[in-house]
């Protein structure tokens, strides 16, 4: 499996651990990520706030480069472009979608791209998020088969944040309100997944720079929710979410008088550990809240299975009402 790969600015440095770990994991799974040559920033959420057409042209340059580099010389195959960052994924797929919807916008964008000798045909690329590729293309089975050191006993809160599941223009692969694909991936690695009702809520995004109080409150809610369910760590799939929850955790503690120390890791880091890679190979140690104490449990003898008591049949005199049936998850 070969994909065009758009790392995005964060993975170059502040989320370097994400890049390192996803590359290591890809190698284990036999997936090739070919970085788009000379890609530029996707504009995050800021560029579009300042200029409309320039923002669309900025993103379209990436699409044009990626289409040229991944679709092959004849352009026949519809290439796939993978973004590990949620904001990059959203910007790339949203621009592709809006260009398809509006021929006028496409026309303007292509006029601008022409100044750099480029052009882009909407829909000629399939923009995917890394998680989507991992669970749907690689698949749980192959992941399970690659696990060498199950993460038994590790209680993780799967955190999706916003932009991977919403608004889901082209590539919706999970529920926008209560996604479960990361939950299942973590269980495949052997971890215990705690209920995490705020799993798709906002980490504050750029609000840390605009209104610190607003942002810290949003981060506090997430930390509290994970702590309420006794999660050992929060696992994430977006550099912005990781940065906000990790780097601002101490600020939250000092503002609200709390004492949270919840490590925030990328899901690919846990995949790598479960595949038996050494911590350094997946970028462990770069986080503000040290993940090592929690990770110390991995490799220890797996605890007895006694934790999950078998379900008892409802007794005759039990007055409780049946729960609504949900479709089987797996």
């Amino acid at each position: 499996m070969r994909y065009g790969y758009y790392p995005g600015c964060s993975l170059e440095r502040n989320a370097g651990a994400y890049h390192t770990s996803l590359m290591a994991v890809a190698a284990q799974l036999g997936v090739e990520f070919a970085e788009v040559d000379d890609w530029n920033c996707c504009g995050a959420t800021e560029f579009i706030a300042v200029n409309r057409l320039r923002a669309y042209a900025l993103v379209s340059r990436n699409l044009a480069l990626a289409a040229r580099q991944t679709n092959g010389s004849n352009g026949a195959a519809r290439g796939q472009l993978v973004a590990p960052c949620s904001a990059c994924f959203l910007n790339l797929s949203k621009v592709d979608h809006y260009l398809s919807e509006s021929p006028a916008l496409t026309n303007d964008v292509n006029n601008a791209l022409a100044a750099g000798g480029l052009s882009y045909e909407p829909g000629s690329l399939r923009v995917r998020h890394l998680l989507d590729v991992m669970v749907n293309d690689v698949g749980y089975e192959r992941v399970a088969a690659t696990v060498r050191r199950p993460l038994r006993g590790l209680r993780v809160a799967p955190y999706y944040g916003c932009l991977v599941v919403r608004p889901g223009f082209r590539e919706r692969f999970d529920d926008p309100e209560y996604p479960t694909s990361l939950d299942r991936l973590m269980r495949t690695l052997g971890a215990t997944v705690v209920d995490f009702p705020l799993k798709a809520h906002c980490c504050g995004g750029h609000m840390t720079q605009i209104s610190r109080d607003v942002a810290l409150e949003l981060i506090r809610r997430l930390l509290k929710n994970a702590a309420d369910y006794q999660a050992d760590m929060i696992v994430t799939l977006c550099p912005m979410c990781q940065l906000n929850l990790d780097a601002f955790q101490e600020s939250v503690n000092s503002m609200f008088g709390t004492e949270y120390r919840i490590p925030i890791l990328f899901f690919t880091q846990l995949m790598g550990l479960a595949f038996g890679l050494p911590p350094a190979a997946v970028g462990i140690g770069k986080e503000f809240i040290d993940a090592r104490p929690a990770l110390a449990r991995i490799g220890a003898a797996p605890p007895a299975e006694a934790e999950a008591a078998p379900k008892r049949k409802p007794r005759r005199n039990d007055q409780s009402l049946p729960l609504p049936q949900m479709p089987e998850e797996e």
Partner: protein
Amino acid sequence: MATSASLSRTSDFFREVVAEAPVDPRLEACLQCGTCGGSCPSGPDMDHTPRALFAMIAAGMRDAVLRSNTPWYCVSCYYCMERCPQEIRITDVMYTLKRMAIKAGYSAQTSAPRAPGFAQTFVDHVENYGRSFELGLITRYYLSHRPLDALKMAPLGMGLLKRKRLDLSPRPIRQIDQLKAILDRAREIDAAAQLT
């Protein structure tokens, strides 16, 4: 969908917002149900909920809307857009209102005065280097817009540096001239569109 006939019955400001949006935001369909205002993570901090803002747009309250902090408090979580029963592209409207506020010179007067500066600093960096450069972004943003807060951010910056999560110098893309040419052309096209 708004037709030219139905749009002609809306306020001037309403039409301006629709014209500025990248694709049809379907604003005319608003039922005033409040799903957006209820869903918004920063809703309590906004001076008007998105729903109220849409009513104000319909009423043509240009000043009050462009002065509002609401768009600047949007965290782009897309909950409103996902849940809107009328499929209004609320997040896009927020971006549109930000651009209009900057253009109209209202951005400094909003009750979220820091946001436009941050956005502009970010844009400048990307236009110069092709990629975002966090250290430069943060230092320039704080030094030029919020010198007093720079101290508060210093420990974070040091932490990132210590963990090798921050570059000391920007890494521009190779074909920065190509990108600049594209962005310049986009600026010209936009400017020409404004004239007509």
